Every structure is written in C-alpha cells, then in structure tokens.
C-alpha cells in the first residue's frame, strides 16, 4: 500500500481525533454526496415567442409555471433563446436575456389610468370609463375638424387634428387592424417609430 502525501496529511489528522468525534455522536463526518441545484425548468411549460426588442427578432422560449390546468395561473418564470431559431441559435443579447425583467417590471401598467386637466397625477379608472371618454373626445374632435374638401373643392375626407403614432413592437395583425380603424376615421397624422 502506498500513501501519497495528501493522504498522509489527512490521516495525520484523522488518527488523533477522528474516531473520537464519531464516538461523541456528532453524526457522519463524511456526507460525500453533494447535490447540484435542481434544474429549475424541469416541469415548466415552454412557449415559442419572438424577442420584442430589435429587428433581429430572435427566437425565445418562454417558460411558464403550471401545466395549463384551469386553476393554475401560468406565471412566466424564465426566458431563454430558442436553439432552433436560425438567426440567434439560442443566443440572446443582454436585453433579450433579461426579458423576464421587462415582463415582470415594477413599472408595468396594470389598470387603465386617467389624468384630468390640471391634476398632478393619474388615478386608476375602469376600462368602460376610459373607452367611453376617449371615444367621445375623438368623435367631438372629428366632427369639429373633419375636412371633406379642400378650399379648391378637391376631396380630402381627412381628419388632421388627431394624430396617431403606431408602435413598432406590435404585431402585423395589430398594425393592420390599427391601419383599418385609423384610416376609416380619416386620420392622416399617422406615423410610427420607423425613422426614430
């Protein structure tokens, strides 16, 4: 039997007090099994999605708790790159890799808010209140300022006094429906974030 240096040092100590300790009943000294942190996504639900930031449009996989059963609210707990996505192949930039903190941001709006003239801040209100009020304001402005024809009699049929800025992180479907609604109202002050 050969004893290398390290074992010798170990034994040097063990010999003196090792057995004593056990005898004193302080339990096993050598709980050799060390466990890694359990894999936290083992039972989450995966949903394919697209990063909403830049136009590389990386594929992401969103992990939610629960299995979709009715009484379990799916909570988004992790976002990671989609390894199958041809462009990002699972990678994400520091923004994409931190998407969870956008989704769960403390500064997310969770209920409709209203600020009346002169007030210093918002007050929470109901959807019905805001939608009714906005529709009323829009109709009043449209009825007051809609132009059917120009001064020289050319057809205009437009409403120039209410502007609309479309988002660029909304879906194409939202874009199309927005286009339809906005143009049907005659809005021409329409732009989006494309150039800014």
């Amino acid at each position, binding site marked *: 039997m050969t004893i290398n240096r390290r074992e010798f040092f170990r034994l040097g100590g063990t010999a003196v007090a090792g057995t004593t300790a056990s005898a004193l009943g302080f339990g096993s000294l050598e709980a*050799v099994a060390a466990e890694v942190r359990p894999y936290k996504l083992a039972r989450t639900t995966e949903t394919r999605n697209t990063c909403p930031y830049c136009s590389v449009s990386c594929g992401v996989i969103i992990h939610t708790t629960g299995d979709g059963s009715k009484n379990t609210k799916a909570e988004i707990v992790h976002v990671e790159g989609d390894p199958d996505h041809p462009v990002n192949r699972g990678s994400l930039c520091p923004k994409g890799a931190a998407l969870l903190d956008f989704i769960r941001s403390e500064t997310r709006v969770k209920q409709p808010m209203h600020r009346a003239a002169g007030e210093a801040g918002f007050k929470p209100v109901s959807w019905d209140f805001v939608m009714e009020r906005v529709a009323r304001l829009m109709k009043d402005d449209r009825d007051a300022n809609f132009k059917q024809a120009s001064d020289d009699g050319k057809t205009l049929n437009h409403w120039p006094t209410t502007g609309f800025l479309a988002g660029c992180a909304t879906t194409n479907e939202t874009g199309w429906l927005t286009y339809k609604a906005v143009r049907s109202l005659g809005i021409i002050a329409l732009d989006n974030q494309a150039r800014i």
Partner: protein
Amino acid sequence: MASLQSLDVRNRSASTAVPPSVRKDLEVAKLIDVSKCIGCKACQSACMAWNDLRPDVGVNSGIYDNPENLGPAAWTVMRYTEHEEAGRLEWLIRKDGCMHCTDPGCLKACPSPGAIVQYANGIVDFVQENCIGCGYCVKGCPFNVPRISKADNRAYKCTLCSDRVAVGQSPACAKACPTGAIVFGSKESMVDHAQGRIKDLQSRGYDKAGLYDPQGVGGTHVMYVLHHADRPELYSGLPNNPEISPMVALWKGALKPLSMIGMGMALLAGLFHFVTKGPNEVTEADEENARKLKGRDAA
C-alpha cells in the same frame, strides 16, 4: 440533504475521505475567445436570469464596467481595457469569473466540509448550505473570484451552471453569447477549438495569440483565447502565472499535520512524563524549610 448525486464528486472541501471515484465523467470546459468578445454583457444578463441574481443598481463611475466588480450576486462581469498596440487602439474586453481550476485554491482553503466541491467533470461549485462564511475561499483563490454576501454570510461565485450541465445543457452565459465568444464542451474539444481560433488570429497579425489554461493551478475549466497570450495581465490584470499562494499552500498544507503532530506530541509528552515521573508534590521538608525561613526572618 438528499443523497441524490447528479454529478460525481472528485474533491470535497475539508474532507478526509476520498469520494467515490470509480465512475469517470467527461471533463468539461468553457472557452472564452476574447478576440470575438464585443463586451455586450449578454453573459451577465443570462447569468443573472438563470441564477435568479439581481445585484443593486449601481452608478456610472466613468467606465463601462457594471457592476463594477464581482459580487455575491454578480458572478461574472465584463472588464474593459483600452490598450494601444503599435498606434492601434484595442479594446480588450474580458469576461471575469470563476476559472474552475483543476487545483482549486478555494477548495483547498475551505474549512467547512462540503462547502466547496469539485465535480468529476471539473466544475468547482460552492454549496451555500454548508458554507460558514469565513472567507477563506477568497484568500485561497488565485483569481480573486469568490465573494461573501453580507446578507447571509455565504460565499458565492460562478457555478458553471452545474445545474444545467448536470442535465446536459451548457452554462447560461455560453448559450446566450451572441458572437460565439463563449463556447462550451469537453475540455479536449475546447482546446482543439482554441487552436483553430489561434490560427485565425495569427493569420490576422496577432503573432502571440494563444490559449490561457494556466498550469500553475493544474489547468482550468474556463479558458481564454487571447490575442496577446504573452501578456495576459493586459486583460484587466489576468494573472500571468497564477498558482495557489505559497502562504495558503503552507497554511492549508504542511502546517495542518505538523501542528497536529506538535499538539499530539505535547499531550503525549505530558502523559509519559506524568506516568514516569509522577506529580511534583510539596514535601513536609519544604514546609519546614519555609517555616524556618519565615522564623529566621521573624527573629
């Protein structure tokens, strides 16, 4: 603690027994190609996201480094150096974090059984449950990596995502890295990969490009490809020939058995002295002498 063992242990801090070592695991490594790194901090994001870490929001101190240093909740940080080489500006950006040494100074220094383990695949992991917060790992580490949390007095550092690796995935940072500057695989294939990268760099005029896999700590399981491998210290002070400090080596090495022997010898010496010579007791003659002395003086 459950006895389930998802990665085999090769080495365990403050333990005198040899862990089960019959099974052979594939040795893994993370290779960081500094020449491909753009310092985007995706690795930092991915690390925070995966490990549920949220360091405090700091300030800008006139540099890009944020968080400015490693911390209990910042297991990896990018370090930026503006370096001029032959009139040409180079922005040397290094991802700092645990190197997962083959001969880990932290593990050597750790006094708490099982607070630091080295898995058979090369990952060095801190088991916070067993950590007593003494900070010896900080002293033992040649790369200044471990950090002790003020909140819970436990040591933290990169785990190389041992939880991911254990189920066959790559570490979160390696997966996220947009430019492929971080790659993960077996140590052998990472060394091969590095050779290819070094050739490419040499073809682009970096004659001294090379692999950083310091042998002073037995090699590492996090390696770098450097454009200036001859001067690793350019990269925010990456140590040139890191090794476990001789002081720590002595403290945690020879001193232990020597002291034990010394203490044991002292005890034994006492014991044998006592049984051979017996107690040194005062005799009536001594008392008499004392009385005499007193009496003489009194007289």
